[in-house]
């Protein structure tokens, strides 16, 4: 390839524009950096979709094989708590989006506030999840070594439902915990006035991740909680 060196390199002595804070030197300019990090996050989310996709695929297959057990088992989930958690998560997506907007405006004070709000809502979600899990332990609904189900015909389907309930919500909660850790890091960075209108990529990508985790829940809620709701309480 015939090449001619013409574009000045950022590391050479003659670069004539100062790079804004937060610039990483493998990039040519801050625009390329923002494009690259955003694409990187989308590629990462594609990977996440395939990861959860394996679980959704298994769920679909077993639900179609054992519909009665799945419906009956679903009816033992606490729909009001699940619904409350859905509202909490959607609210946390709003605060997250507002944090991204504040970062784009370079308003670090409000980035910090909205991120703290997101973190509190995320922790509320996880707290409710702990209440629900302990309830399942008490009612012997944890599959494996501690599972009891009255109706023998439904038992395999019901147990498989709870296998997926715990694995899917567990994987989702794990992503929430990782997200909470990341929020703590970005709260610290915002307190150091890191973000400005040319450098807000990390908050935007944090937002993409957080919204993705929310959307997973938007699918989980009907698939897990509402599946047997039509059977009525006490079935």
């Amino acid at each position: 390839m015939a090449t001619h060196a013409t574009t000045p390199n950022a590391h050479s002595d003659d670069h004539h524009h100062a790079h804004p804070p937060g610039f990483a030197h493998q990039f040519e300019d801050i625009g390329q950096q923002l494009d690259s990090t955003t694409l990187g996050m989308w590629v990462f989310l594609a990977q996440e979709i395939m990861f959860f996709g394996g679980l959704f695929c298994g769920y679909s297959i077993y639900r179609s094989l054992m519909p009665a057990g799945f419906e009956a088992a679903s009816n033992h989930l606490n729909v009001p708590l699940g619904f409350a958690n859905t509202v909490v998560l959607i609210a946390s997506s709003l605060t997250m989006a507002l944090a991204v907007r504040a970062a784009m405006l370079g308003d670090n004070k409000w980035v910090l506030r909205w991120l703290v709000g997101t973190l509190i809502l995320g922790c509320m979600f996880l707290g409710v999840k702990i209440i629900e899990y302990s309830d399942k332990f008490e009612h012997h609904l944890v599959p494996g070594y501690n599972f009891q189900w009255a109706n023998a015909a439904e038992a395999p389907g019901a147990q498989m439902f709870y296998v997926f309930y715990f694995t899917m919500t567990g994987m989702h909660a794990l992503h929430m915990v990782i997200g909470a850790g990341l929020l703590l890091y970005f709260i610290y960075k915002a307190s150091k006035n890191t973000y400005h209108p040319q450098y807000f990529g990390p908050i935007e990508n944090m937002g993409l991740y957080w919204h993705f985790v929310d959307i997973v829940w938007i699918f989980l809620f009907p698939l897990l909680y509402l599946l047997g709701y039509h059977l009525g309480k006490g079935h």
Partner: protein
Amino acid sequence: MSATAIPRVHTPPPPDPPVRPAKHYINATSGLASWLLTVDHKRITILYLISITIFFAIGGFFAMLVRLELITPQGDLMTAETYNRSFSMHGIAMVFFFLIPSIPATLGNFLVPIMCGARDLAFPKINLLSWYCFIVGAVFALATAFMGGVDTGWTFYTPYSSTYANGAVLTAILGAFFAGFSSILTGLNFIVTIHKMRAPGLTWFRMPLFLWAMYATSIIQILGTPVVAITLILVGLERGLGFGFFDPKLGGDPILMQHLFWFYSHPAVYVMILPPLGVMSELTAAFCRRRVYGYHFVALSSVAIAVISFIVWGHHLFTSGQSVYAGMVFSVLTFLVGIPSAIKVFNWMATMFKASISFEAPMIYAFGFIGLFTIGGVTGLFLATLGLDIHMHDTYFVVAHFHYIMVGSAIFSYMGGLHYWWPKITGKLYNDTLGCISAVLIFLGFNATFFPQFILGYMGMPRRYHAYPAEFQFLNICSSLGATLLAVGYVLPAIYFTWSLFKGKDAGPNPFKAKGLEWEIPSPPPTENFTKVPVVNSEPYDYAPGAGH
């Protein structure tokens, strides 16, 4: 450009004599910490190179145990149990810790930014994180070996890995999981780098074919690996907590595990073979002094292979109780892989036709590759044939077929690429004669090891048994003798490569007089790769017309 013209003096490098720059990425900083915490893609290449070579040796050790046992028909060297653990550890070490990272994490890591004309990958810290993920996985794999290994085979099929498991399955699964995560991070970095970091003028169809191959590989790493990650987690939960995903007693289906596993692991075969196909295109162009014939077809055939690879997994389940109609569909789809693969082989041969080929070590490896890849590919079509596969399934025919692709082809190309870019990576020249000798030794040793296994398999010898009927002994002895020759062929490069580091001549920027951005910078390159961002204004492999005559 700055308006205040500060006079700058650019002395062009001396035109010919091989020079080694005083300062380059290897000696830029010193100390162990400067290597273990480096974010320079070239240093991470070296870290990976050392790590995967260790695992190649470990995998090779277990392979030699297997071949030693199979010299005699009786199971006399080890028990059936030990034999099962040997071939399982051989597979786990070779697939997850050598073949999958082999070219992407070493040559890819080194060359993707340089071929893009970039200073580094898009995410240098994630690149380092990927190596640490690999190391965490490696620690789990070694722990597995010291805890007595596993006997599940590298595929972790349930119920071998759940109900009936009697080895360190959890640590082995964690090892594969973390190795997979390192592979995902590498793929992510390559996709973003190739999309966003290409130098001015470097359009998609001016990219070297190696970049096309790495791009196609990265797509599989991103879309396939997470599926096997969740599958391994499910197997771990079944084993650890009694979650019955794949346990028929609890309503689960073990065949689902095979579907999920092969949804990744068949595309994973192309993670192992697409990068070698990319290296082959580079070698063919460089040593024929020609633009690769049918460049666009070769480039897009990599993408085609990546796409088709996701819809053929069912050919691993022809005898597992999958619907016969699904089997027929998967059989037809599998045949499709032959088309882009053949496009590549025929285009390389067209490139070589009437070219004045220079017979240096990398090219000898390239020749070997074409032979082995063709045999491995065509026998793959045997196995894709539904009726024939019922006879061949789980015999040595299958073992021979996938070793021709995953060992023969993949390692031949890896070695060819390593010989081709070794002077760039280290700045030193190795002994070319010894390089040619090792290529021939490996070719002979490989065929002696694995060709007899086609015959053994066709005669009906099943895989994964430590004892066999006496009439199979002669061919098994041939195979074990070939393996010895193969081992010699692999040790030889280790010796002369190491020797070249200390005593080799300085390579100079372009010892093979090849075209490409990587050959326009010093050997070894400086930490920032390019002192000026290159501008690309011509097609790849821009050799002078008639240079091949």
